[in-house]
């Protein structure tokens, strides 16, 4: 399997009025077609910024400078024109955000939000788009998709909203799905269901998933390979099991020690 995404010595710097702060330092890694890659690290470690950079969502803020290369299917997303980048967004690369509460537009119907990316990128008719949206909702195991199609975000529970987010990001059948802490805001029981969903999407649609979490145990369950980030740098990379049982870095050891013991025996 080839590399779908290659990140080469990516650095992200915030340009303040006086101070410049480098928040991601020289990070390189790659995502292969159809794999689930995990990125672990505490908040402020730069994992979310890395994800946003890949999704092309950082250049909106003028105060951020990006160095290095982000190659998606060989194309450098950091230097290509906005119009070209836009053609990847929501089409080949889609995102699932942490806050299902605020990441959905409160005054737009669920159905329209789910089908937005195929409306932007595709040529399907209104009816076809609706069919596809219903299919996506069935994929994420939302009950009564026809009904939910006409609902508004505030009428759904947190778990349902996250399913909607996932449905909206899988509808275009992307090559890469970036999930930034998708389960953090949810109850533990729902977390588990959402993880299963990612596995299913990966298996059935052959979508590569970049799964970002501060919770190493989630990554252990879901991902074949994983990275660990600490204060903007990549400190560990490799097979998840290997990282888990033979951590090289002391920070990783601490991270593993934080997981309740019964989990480790799995």
């Amino acid at each position: 399997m080839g590399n779908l995404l290659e990140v080469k010595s990516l650095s992200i710097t915030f340009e303040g009025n006086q101070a410049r702060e480098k928040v991601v330092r020289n990070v390189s890694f790659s995502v292969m077609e159809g794999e689930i890659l995990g990125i672990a690290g505490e908040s402020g470690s730069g994992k979310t910024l890395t994800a946003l950079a890949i999704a092309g969502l950082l250049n909106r803020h003028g105060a951020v400078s990006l160095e290095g290369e982000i190659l998606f299917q060989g194309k450098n997303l950091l230097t290509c024109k906005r119009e070209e980048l836009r053609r990847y967004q929501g089409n080949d690369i889609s995102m699932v955000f942490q806050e299902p509460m605020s990441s959905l537009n409160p005054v737009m119907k669920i159905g329209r939000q789910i089908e937005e990316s195929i409306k932007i990128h595709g040529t399907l008719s209104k009816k076809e788009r609706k069919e596809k949206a219903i299919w996506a909702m069935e994929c994420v195991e939302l009950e009564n998709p026809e009904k939910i199609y006409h609902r508004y975000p505030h009428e759904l529970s947190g778990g349902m909203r996250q399913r909607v987010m996932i449905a909206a990001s899988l509808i275009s059948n992307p090559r890469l799905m970036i999930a930034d802490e998708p389960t953090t805001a949810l109850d533990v029981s729902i977390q588990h269901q959402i993880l299963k969903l990612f596995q299913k999407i990966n298996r059935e649609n052959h979508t590569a998933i970049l799964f970002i979490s501060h919770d190493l145990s989630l990554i252990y369950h879901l991902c074949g390979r994983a990275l660990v980030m600490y204060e903007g740098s990549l400190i560990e990379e490799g097979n998840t099991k290997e990282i888990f049982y033979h951590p090289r870095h002391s920070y990783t050891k601490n991270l593993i020690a934080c997981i309740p013991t019964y989990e480790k025996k799995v």
Partner: protein
Amino acid sequence: MKYIIKKIFFFILTLLIVVFLTFLAFQIIPGDPAVSLLGTEGTPLKVAALREEMGLNKPVGERFLTWVLNFMKGDMGISYSYQIPVSELITDKIPVTFLLTMLSFAFIICMGIPLGIYTSKHAGSRLDRLIMTVNQVTMAIPPFFLGIILTYLFGLVLKWFVPGGYISYSDDFFGFFTYLIFPAIAIAFPKSAMVVKLFRGSIIEEAKKDYVRTAYSRGNTINGVLYGHVLKNAILPVITFLAVVFADIIAGSIIIEQVFGIPGLGRMLITSIQNRDYPVVQAIIVCIAFVVLGSNLLADILLKVLDPRIKL
């Protein structure tokens, strides 16, 4: 639907309360309406007869009820100073004030909304800063002073219109319409500056929210995000404000009619206040209350349509 019915119920209830309060306010004024109505011809005998005829001997509650019922039938009482029915006095004034109000409102929307969008899109640019500085000053101009300036500039210096040369709508509708343009601008200008400021701030606030990032992640263009997502959220506080503005326009039109010599409801109100012609004052106040509360009701319904989160 339930929401709208409830809102309409409250609208009627508040209208009744307002009407009752104005009625009560004019009851406690010293002086006898019968004496006022008869003026110099008032002999004690005539006054007593008229009191009987007007039902002034009956209790307040009953008088209020008859007054409301008569009002709904279009009988608003008799003017003290003109000795003719109030309804006759005000019916041909209503279209004047109505058109002035609508024209001002249209100007506010046409200036405030596009400028709000433009400045928020280019926030921080030189032109944005220039517009916002001008805007801040514009907000501070009292409409009647702007009216005076417009009269001086366009009426006396440039001679685009004849100050005080009001043309009745029954004589020449086009002339009437064009005469109202400058008064409407005088009312609309400061208010539209407020709309620009509010709308710009609201758009900028909304643009920081998480759902905007989601919208970008789906491949939306900047305009796609703005028109497809942000505006529908950002307009909500503006709608509430526009209801307030509408009420303010009516109050503003009272003064502006005086500046430009337009014989509308406002002018009638002022002369009636000066002449203590209470039946007229009362009738005009009730008409205005109806419009003010009605615009609030409309805004509430519009908000409910646009924002599914609103519950009663």
